[in-house]
């Protein structure tokens, strides 16, 4: 096989821009999907049935359908039938946030319900409101407990941002595939793409492992 790695070196600035876009998409998505997931989790735990049910419907829809379909749907169906045209970037963010919020809500909800009733009673017994107990006692413990599951979602998100390349958002995948098409150096370009994803993704997984060890709540 005749390899020519110069295609990688020559296109480094483009790979760099693509990688930045991937990081940016991941960070922005998660920054919105954490509050989004919390809101959905609180809604599902609500005693008001219609609130709980609508959150459940939302979550189950976005968890049970492929992200690629969700992105297509927002990008092509909304403008055609509902007269809503979102930009490519907005489409990407909306699709990712809805999807990841759904996964986060399940993670957070599992954490919240795993905290035993005694902790609620202990908080209430010193006169706290339920909201204070939730924010100061239950949530901090719940979030630490679900950190590993949350980290799995984060790493998935980081890779799933590649799906937005189908609507021409210039993330690492889009850029890489474009360079491949231009240069026909399939092996070199895809290997570089894999290496860049791995170099970014692996330290994140390790960082979360470390966070979990460092801040675990002993009981």
């Amino acid at each position, binding site marked *: 096989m005749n390899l020519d790695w110069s295609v990688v070196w020559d296109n480094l600035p483009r790979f760099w821009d693509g990688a930045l876009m991937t990081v940016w998409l991941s960070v922005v998505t998660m920054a919105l999907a954490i509050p989004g997931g919390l809101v959905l989790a609180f809604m599902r735990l609500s005693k008001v049935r219609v609130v709980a049910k609508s959150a459940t419907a939302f979550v189950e829809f976005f968890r049970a359908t492929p992200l690629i379909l969700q992105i297509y749907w927002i990008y092509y169906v909304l403008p055609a039938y509902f007269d809503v045209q979102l930009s490519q970037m907005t489409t990407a963010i909306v699709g990712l946030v809805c999807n990841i919020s759904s996964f986060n809500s399940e993670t957070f909800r599992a954490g919240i319900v795993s905290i035993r009733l*005694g*902790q609620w*009673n*202990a*908080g*209430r*017994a*010193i*006169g*706290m*409101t*339920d909201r*204070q107990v939730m924010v*100061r*006692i239950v949530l*901090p*413990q719940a979030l*630490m407990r679900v950190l590993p599951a949350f980290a799995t979602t984060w790493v998935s998100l980081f890779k799933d941002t590649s799906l937005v390349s189908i609507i021409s958002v210039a993330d690492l995948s889009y850029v890489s595939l474009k360079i491949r098409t231009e240069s026909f150096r399939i092996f070199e370009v895809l290997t570089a793409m894999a290496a860049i994803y791995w170099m970014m993704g692996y330290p994140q997984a390790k960082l979360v492992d470390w966070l979990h060890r460092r801040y675990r*709540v*002993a*009981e």
Partner: protein
Amino acid sequence: MTAGQTKHRRVSHGSAPILALEHIVKRYGALTALEDVSLNVNRGEVVCLIGPSGSGKSTLLRCANALETLDGGRILFEGREVHAGDPKSARAVRQRMGMVFQNFELFPHLTVLRNITIGPTTVLRLDPAAAEQRARTLLAKVDLSDKATAYPAALSGGQQQRVAIARALAMEPALMLFDEPTSALDPETVGEVLTVMKALADEGTTMVVVTHEMDFARRVGDWIVVFDKGRIIEEGPPKQIFETTTVARTREFLSHLGWHGESTLEAADVAPLDKEDIAR
């Protein structure tokens, strides 16, 4: 004999009881946990609730602290009716009533100091420095000054329970409720918790204690209430309950615990546990 024989003189200092339960009923589905229970607690009194497991003692404490809604009767605390269903009323009661749980229920993600200050700072809006001052005083009182920065998981059960007592005291409650505070403890740490509780009683703290520690009830209690199957079957001063009871069910319960009336009582007086742990 039933609740009819409750006419004993008690020290009420001429004032209304701080806590009055009037004919309260509590059901869980088909199970009746409390059936027409009436009980008064006067200021400065230590009332001990004893009786078999599942007889309703702990349920009574949770009702008093508005952690459970009632199915009948009413509860008056400091002269005002407790409405567990109304969050405002419930919080007002709980702020004035400290509660100590069987399983401690310290907040595992907070240090010992923060466990004690979180109530005063979030509920009473005390400033952090004053709350910390109060917490350190209380830690000294429960003999745990060196554990202020530790996390609960690093403490023994007895130490955790003493922190839990300090946490409840930090709210400066008018009444302390203890729900089997030593039942989850290793035998060797029971004494240190009872010692703290006895010191509180000696200071005049008003306490309601659900306990299986008959020795504590006899020595520290001013008034003993015997539960069975969700009802009060007898109440009276310790001497009546532990020495001269004529209620068969009370005698039966005490004998199951290895308590055989006066002669054993004398033997218990010289048992090492009394001397070392309680009278220390």
